[in-house]
C-alpha cells in the first residue's frame, strides 16, 4: 500500500531517509505481491505446456524424462480421447445456445417489465449460483434415476443448460439495465416498429452482455466435471476422460490438448483486442 501515487504527507518529505532498497520495496510491495499471485495462477499452465513435450517412462506424466514431440504429432493417439473432446464441444455448443436463448429472455423480462413474482424469479435465478455443484448434481441425478431416464448426452445437456442459465441472466440483465430506455424510444420515434426496434437497437446494444453470457456458458459447460460426473452414465466427456486418466494413467496428449486450448483462447483474445483497437483508431 505504500505506493498509491498519492501526494506525500509532510512527514515523508522531511529529512527521514531510510534505506533506499527498503523504500523501493515499500513503494512496490503491491506490484510484487500481485505479480507473485499472477505467477501462482500461471505456473500450472506453464507446467502443462512443458509436460506436453515430455516422454514419460510409466503410465503417468508427472515426472520430467526427456523432450519429445510425439504427443503433438499424434494428439488423438489415445483411445477415446478425441471422441470425448468432440462430445464435450458438442454439448458445450448446445448448452450455450440453450442457456443463452432462455437466459436472455428471462433477463429482458426482469430488466424491462414489472410483474408479480419478481422476487421469486430473482431467488430462483440466484440459488443455482449459491448452491454447491455436488448438491445440484446429486439432486438432478436422483430425479433422473427415479423417472427412469437413461443417462447420457441428453441428461448432460439438460443439466448444463440448467446451471449455465443463471450466469447468462446475470450478464445480460446488467447490460440491459444499464441501457438508456430513451434509445428504444428514439428508435420508435424514428419510425421503427417494435420488432425493428428490438432487432436494430435493443439487440445490438445488448449484444456484448449476451456474448459474455454465452462465452461464460461455453467455458462452464466445457469444463464442468462434478455435475456431469453424476449425470453422464457411461458417457465420457473430456473432463471425465481426464478424471479417469488420473486413476489409470495420464497420457501426454491431455497436456497437448490443454495447451492447445490455452493458446487458441489467448490468440482469440489478442486478435479480438487488436481488431477492436484498429476499429477505434479508424
Amino acid at each position: 500500500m505504500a505506493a498509491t501515487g498519492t501526494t506525500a504527507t509532510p512527514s515523508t518529505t522531511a529529512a527521514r531517509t531510510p534505506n533506499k532498497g527498503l523504500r523501493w520495496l515499500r513503494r512496490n510491495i503491491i506490484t510484487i505481491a500481485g505479480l507473485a499471485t499472477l505467477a501462482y495462477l500461471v505456473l500450472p499452465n506453464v507446467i502443462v505446456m512443458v509436460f506436453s513435450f515430455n516422454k514419460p517412462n510409466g503410465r503417468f506424466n508427472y515426472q520430467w524424462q526427456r523432450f519429445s514431440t510425439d504427443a503433438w504429432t499424434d494428439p488423438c493417439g489415445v483411445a477415446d480421447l478425441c471422441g470425448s473432446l468432440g462430445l464435450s464441444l458438442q454439448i458445450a455448443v448446445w448448452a450455450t445456445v440453450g442457456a443463452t436463448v432462455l437466459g436472455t429472455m428471462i433477463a429482458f423480462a426482469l430488466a424491462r417489465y414489472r410483474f408479480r413474482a419478481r422476487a421469486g424469479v430473482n431467488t430462483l435465478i440466484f440459488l443455482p449460483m449459491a448452491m454447491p455443484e455436488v448438491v445440484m448434481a446429486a439432486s438432478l441425478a436422483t430425479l433422473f434415476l427415479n423417472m427412469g431416464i437413461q443417462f447420457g448426452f441428453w441428461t448432460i445437456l439438460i443439466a448444463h443448460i440448467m446451471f449455465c442459465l443463471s450466469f447468462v441472466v446475470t450478464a445480460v440483465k446488467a447490460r440491459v439495465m444499464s441501457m438508456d430506455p430513451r434509445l428504444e424510444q428514439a428508435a420508435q420515434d424514428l419510425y421503427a416498429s417494435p420488432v425493428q426496434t428490438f432487432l436494430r437497437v435493443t439487440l445490438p446494444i445488448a449484444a456484448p452482455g449476451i456474448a459474455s453470457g454465452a462465452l461464460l456458458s461455453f467455458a462452464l459447460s466445457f469444463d464442468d466435471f462434478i455435475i456431469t460426473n453424476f449425470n453422464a452414465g457411461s458417457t465420457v466427456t473430456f473432463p471425465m476422460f481426464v478424471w479417469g486418466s488420473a486413476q489409470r494413467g495420464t497420457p501426454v496428449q491431455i497436456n497437448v490438448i490443454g495447451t492447445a486450448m490455452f493458446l487458441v483462447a489467448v490468440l482469440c483474445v489478442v486478435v479480438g483486442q487488436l481488431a477492436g483497437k484498429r476499429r477505434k483508431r479508424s
Partner: protein
Amino acid sequence: MTKNANTRSSGGDVRLQGISKTYGSFTAVHPLDLTVPAGSFFALLGASGCGKTTTLRMIAGLEEPTTGTVELSGQDVTVLPPYKRQVNTVFQNYALFPHLDIYENVAFGLRRRGIKSVKKQVEEMLDLVQLGPMARRKPQQLSGGQQQRVAVARALINHPQVLLLDEPLGALDLKLRRQMQLELKRIQTEVGITFVHVTHDQEEAMTMADTVAVMNGGRVEQLGAPADLYENPATTFVANFLGTSNLIEAEVVEAGGEELLLKAAGGKLRLPAARCSASARTGEKVLAGVRPEKVALRHTDDAGSVPEGHNRLSGRIKDASFIGVSTQYVVEVPGLGELAVYEQNIERDGRLVPGAEIVLHWSPAHTFGLDATQDIQAGADLDEEAA
C-alpha cells in the same frame, strides 16, 4: 402559418384537447387544452416535475394520455404508436445510438420507412448542421454540441410535421447553449417546421419561442408571447419563475376608476386597473408587483427630484453587488421586507452604498396586480434547478 408562408412551410398544428396523465394516484398532467399553431416555435417552460416532459411525450406517442385526444394537422393520433406519427423528437441527452456511426444515426428514420437511396439526403442534412466530415465517427467520439446537432439532424431529416425538443440544450455549457439557441432558431425559420420545445431555462424559452406556456404542478399557469408573460404575469408563479419580481402585499383603498389606489407600509401605490388580474374591490388585498429593473433609486437627500405621480417607498440599502452592466441592490423597506432593484450603470451615485437611506420609485404603469391568496414565494428559486 403566417410568418413562414413564403418559406418551405411544412409544419402542422398540434391540438391537445383535455389530455391528462395519471400514474396510479399521482397526476402528472391535469386535463389540458393547448393549440400550437403550424410553423410556430412553441416552448413549454417549467421546473422539473411540472408535467412539461410528460406533455411532450404524449404528443410524441411515447406516453398514452389517460384522457383526452392529440390531433396533428387535424388528424386524431391519440392511439397511434410513435413510429406511425409524423413527429420526431430530440431527446434529452440526445439518445444517439451508440452502436451506429453518425451517418447511420441520421439515416435511421429514412431506412425504417423503406427509403433506399439515403445518401444525398443524409449528406445534405449533415451539411446543414455542419457535421459532414464527422459522418463515420461514433457518437461517443463527438463533443456535446456536436452530438446535439446530430440529434437535431436525425430528427429533421424525416421532415416531421412537428419537431419535439426535450431539454435539448440542458447538457451544454452556457456559451455553447447560447450559440445553439440561435442555431436552432435559424434552422426553425429555415425549414418552417413546428417546434415544441421543453425547457426549464426561462431565458432560453424567451429567446427562442414565439409562444411560451408556463407549466406548474401539471397545469398551464399562463400562455403567451414572451414579452407579454414577462410584463403581465398572471400568477405569482409566473412572476417569480420568469425573471425576478418584487411582490408587495397591499390593500385596495380606492377602486372603480382606471387606476386602483393601494396602501402598503404606510405608502400609497397606484396600479392601472387593466393590469390587475385579481378582483380588486375596496378593502380587499392584492399583490402589487414590479420588476426590479423598472425601479429607480434616489438618495434621501434628492427625494425631491422623484417625478410627480410615481409610486414611491423609502428604505435603506442592505446590500449592493456590482455586476458590470448593472448594480443589483437589496433594499430594506420597513414593514414590507426586502425589495430588489437593478440600476443600470450609467451615472453611478457614490452615496448609494449599504446603509444609505434611499427612496424607491417607479411609474405606476409598470405595476401589475395579482391575487393575494396565492403563495407569494411560488416559483422563486426554481429557475436554475436542472430539470
